[in-house]
C-alpha cells in the first residue's frame, strides 16, 4: 500500500514541477542580467569580427555596444554569440540573444512570417559578384553557365536565382553554411563566382590567398538594407535598439562627435543638441534608460560617421566609400528620425 501511495505522491510532485514562470520584458531582463547578449557573425571584417584576443569590432558590434552603453554606460557589458546565417533567427526567436546585429537584410517575410522586427538600417548595401581576374569577365551578363559559391539560406541565394532567371542565364549554385567555407570553396576554385553583399565582398576578399587577383563586377543586383533585429512583440526593447542607431546618426548630423561631446554638452545653445545630450527634455526616461544615454554612446563609441570611418571607411582595408550611407543632407540615404 505504501508503495502505491509513494508512486502517486512522486507523480504528483513531478507534475507540479511542470509550472512555467512568467517572463518580464527583454529590457528588464537585460538590466537584471547586467549585460546584453548580442548575436553576431562568425567573422566578417568591418561588421563583426573577432581579433586574436577574442575582442569583437565592427559596425554591427558597435550597435550592440551602443545598447550596452545606453543601459549600463559601459560598452564592455556585451556577450557576443557568433551565429551562422542558418542559426541566427532561431537564436533570436528562442531568446538566446537579445539583439541580432549580424549584417541581416530587412525583408517582408522576415519581418512578418519569421516573427522578427528590424530596428533600422545600419548599412545600405547591394549584392555583387566577384570573379578572378584570370577569367577576364567584365560584366555579370557574361556569367552564363558559371558555378557560383553562395551562403545557404540567405537572401543572397534567392537574389542570385532571380538575377540569372531574369537574364535567361543558367548557373550552378554551390552552397555552404559557414561564410568561411564559402570563401574557401571559391578560393580553391570550386566555383567561378563568389556572390554576397558588396560590403561582404570587400570584407571576405581580405581572406583570399591573393586579394588583388580578383575583381568585383560592376552590377549591383539587389537592395540589401542591413540592420539589427529584435523579437516581435516587445516594443520597449524594439524602441531602445532603434533609437540607439538614430542617436548615432543624429549626432553626426548635428556635428557632435566623441571628441567634442563634453564641450558641446557644456556650451551648445542648439536645443536639438541639448535634447540629444540629455541637457533638456526626458528623452532617456521615455526610453527607460538614463537621460545621458546618447551622450554616453557618442562619448564611448562615437557618432555614425566615426563608426563608419573606423570600421569600413576608405582608410580601412575594406576601402568602402560612404556612398548611399552618407547622411540624407549629403546625398545619401541615412535619415535619422528627430530626437524630440
Amino acid at each position, binding site marked *: 500500500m*505504501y508503495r502505491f*501511495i*509513494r508512486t502517486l*505522491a*512522486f507523480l504528483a510532485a513531478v507534475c507540479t514541477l511542470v509550472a512555467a514562470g512568467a517572463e518580464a520584458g527583454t529590457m528588464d531582463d537585460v538590466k537584471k542580467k547586467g549585460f546584453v547578449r548580442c548575436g553576431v557573425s562568425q567573422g566578417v571584417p568591418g561588421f563583426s569580427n573577432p581579433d586574436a584576443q577574442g575582442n569583437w569590432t565592427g559596425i554591427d558590434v558597435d550597435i550592440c555596444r551602443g545598447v550596452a552603453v545606453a543601459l549600463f554606460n559601459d560598452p564592455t557589458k556585451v556577450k557576443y554569440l557568433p551565429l551562422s546565417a542558418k542559426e541566427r533567427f*532561431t537564436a533570436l526567436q528562442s531568446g538566446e540573444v537579445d539583439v541580432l546585429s549580424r549584417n541581416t537584410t530587412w525583408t517582408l517575410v522576415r519581418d512578418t512570417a519569421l516573427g522578427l522586427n528590424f530596428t533600422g538600417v545600419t548599412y545600405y548595401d547591394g549584392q555583387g559578384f566577384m570573379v578572378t581576374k584570370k577569367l577576364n569577365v567584365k560584366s555579370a551578363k557574361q556569367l552564363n553557365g558559371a558555378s557560383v559559391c553562395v551562403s545557404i539560406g540567405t537572401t543572397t541565394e534567392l537574389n542570385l536565382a532571380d538575377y540569372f532567371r531574369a537574364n535567361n542565364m543558367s548557373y550552378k549554385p554551390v552552397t555552404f553554411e*559557414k561564410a568561411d567555407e564559402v570563401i574557401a570553396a571559391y578560393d580553391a576554385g570550386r566555383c567561378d563566382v563568389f556572390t554576397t553583399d558588396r560590403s561582404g565582398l570587400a570584407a571576405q576578399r581580405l581572406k583570399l*590567398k591573393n586579394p588583388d587577383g580578383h575583381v568585383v563586377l560592376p552590377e549591383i543586383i539587389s537592395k540589401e538594407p542591413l540592420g539589427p533585429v529584435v523579437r516581435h512583440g516587445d516594443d520597449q526593447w524594439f524602441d531602445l535598439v532603434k533609437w540607439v542607431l538614430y542617436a548615432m546618426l543624429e549626432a553626426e548630423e548635428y556635428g557632435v562627435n566623441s571628441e567634442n561631446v563634453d564641450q558641446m554638452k557644456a556650451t551648445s545653445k542648439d536645443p536639438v543638441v541639448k535634447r540629444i545630450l540629455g541637457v533638456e527634455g526626458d528623452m532617456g526616461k521615455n526610453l527607460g534608460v538614463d537621460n545621458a544615454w546618447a551622450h554616453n554612446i557618442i562619448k564611448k563609441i562615437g557618432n555614425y560617421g566615426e563608426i563608419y570611418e573606423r570600421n569600413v571607411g576608405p582608410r580601412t582595408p575594406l576601402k568602402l566609400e560612404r556612398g548611399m550611407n552618407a547622411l540624407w543632407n549629403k546625398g545619401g540615404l541615412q535619415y535619422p528620425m528627430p530626437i524630440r
Partner: protein
Amino acid sequence: MANRVQVGAPGTLILRPPATVGVAGWVRQNLFSSPANAVLTLVSLWVLYVTVPPLVRWAFIDADWVGSTREACDREGACWVFIRVWFDRLMYGFYPESEIWRIHVGYGILAVAAVPLFVPRFPWKHWVGVFLLFVYPVIAFHLFVGGTFTVDIVDLLAGLALAAGTVARFAPALAARPWSPRWRSIYPAFAVVALAWLLLGGRLVGGPLLPVSATLWPLVETRLWGGLFLTLVVASVGIVGSLPLGIVLALGRRSELPVIRAICVAFIEVWRGVPLITVLFMASNMFPLFMPEGVSFDKLLRALLGVTIFASAYMAEVVRGGLQAIPKGQYEAAQALGLGYWRTMGLIVLPQALRIVIPGIVNNFIGLFKDTTLVLIIGLFDFLGMAQAAASNAHWLGFAIEGYVFTAFGFWIFCFGMSRYSQHLERKLHTGH
C-alpha cells in the same frame, strides 16, 4: 597436389603443401602456395610499395616540425607546425588559457577514479561506479563551468538525508548496520516530504533559507568549450545520460502492460529510425519552441539533450539484449521468494543483465564517440570542427590534410583502444561462467 585436404579454421579450405618449416617454409605456405596466391602477394606488395613509402616521406622525413608561423612550412612534406600552433585550440577549444588546469584536474580525477575498475579483484567497484555515475558529473560540472553557485544549506541537508535514507531503505547491506524494519514503514512518508521540499520548498517559502554562495573560479561559458574536450564531454554525457533512460525503456519494452510496451517501442524505434543529424537539427531548432516563454537553454545543452535521447534508444536495445539473456529460472525464483516487479528487476535481474551488456555499452560508446563529430554541423567546435575551423582560417589555408590526419590519429587511438577493451571483456565474460 591436393592429396591431403585439411579443414583449417572454419570456413577455409587449406590445401596443405609439402612439409613446411622455418621462414622459407612459412613464406611459401602463407604467401606463395599457388600461382594465384603468388600473384595476390605481389599485388599486395605493390600496393604497400606505392602507399607506405610516400606516406612516411610526407609525414616524417619531409615534414616541418619546428617554427611557429606559416612560413616555417616550406618543404614538400606535412606541416606539423600547423598542429603545434593550433594544439591548444584542438584540445580545449577557446577555453581560457589560465583556466585550462581545470580540465586537467577533471581528467585527473576521472583517471584516478577509473583505475580500480581495471583491477580485477578490487572490492569496492560498486562504490566507484556510484561515484562515477552520480558524484563525478556534479564535480565535473562545477569544475568545467565554474562561476558563482548558490546552495541552500537546508536543501543540501534534505538532499543528503534523502540519499542516505534511500540507501538505508533499499540496500541495507550497503549501510553501516542493518536498519530496523520500522524505518521501512516510515520511509515512504519521509521520501515524499523530502522530495516535496526539494522540489517546491524554495517556492513556498519564497527563497532559499540558508543560502551559501561561493565562487571558486571564474565562469567559463560553454560557447568557449571546444576541441577534444568538448568531444569527450558530449560523448560522456550522452552515454551516462542515456544509461538510466535506456534501462527504463528496455524494461518498458519487455513489460507485460501493452500500453507501456507500445509507448517504449514507439520511442525506441522512432529515434533509431532517423539520422542523428535530424535529431540535432530538431534539438537546436525546435527545443526552444517546446519550452515555455522565457525558458531557454544554451546550444551545448540542446545538443547534449539531442544526443542523450538518441543514444538512449540504442542503449535500450543493448540492455534489452542483456535482459533477454537472463534465464527464466531467475525470474521464477524471484517470484517464488515473493519479490514484486521492481525488486525482482532491481535486485535480481538488472545486476546480472547489466554485467553482461558492458561490452555492448562500450561498443555503443565507440559509436557515439565517432558520432559526436556531427555537432559541428550545428555550429559547435568539437575536435574535428576545430580542425576544420583551423584549416579555413585565413592565415592557415591549405593545411586541411594535416588537421585531418591529427584528428584521425586522436579518434583512432580512442576507438581502437576501446574496441580492444570491449573484445577483452567479451572474452572474459564468455569464459567466466
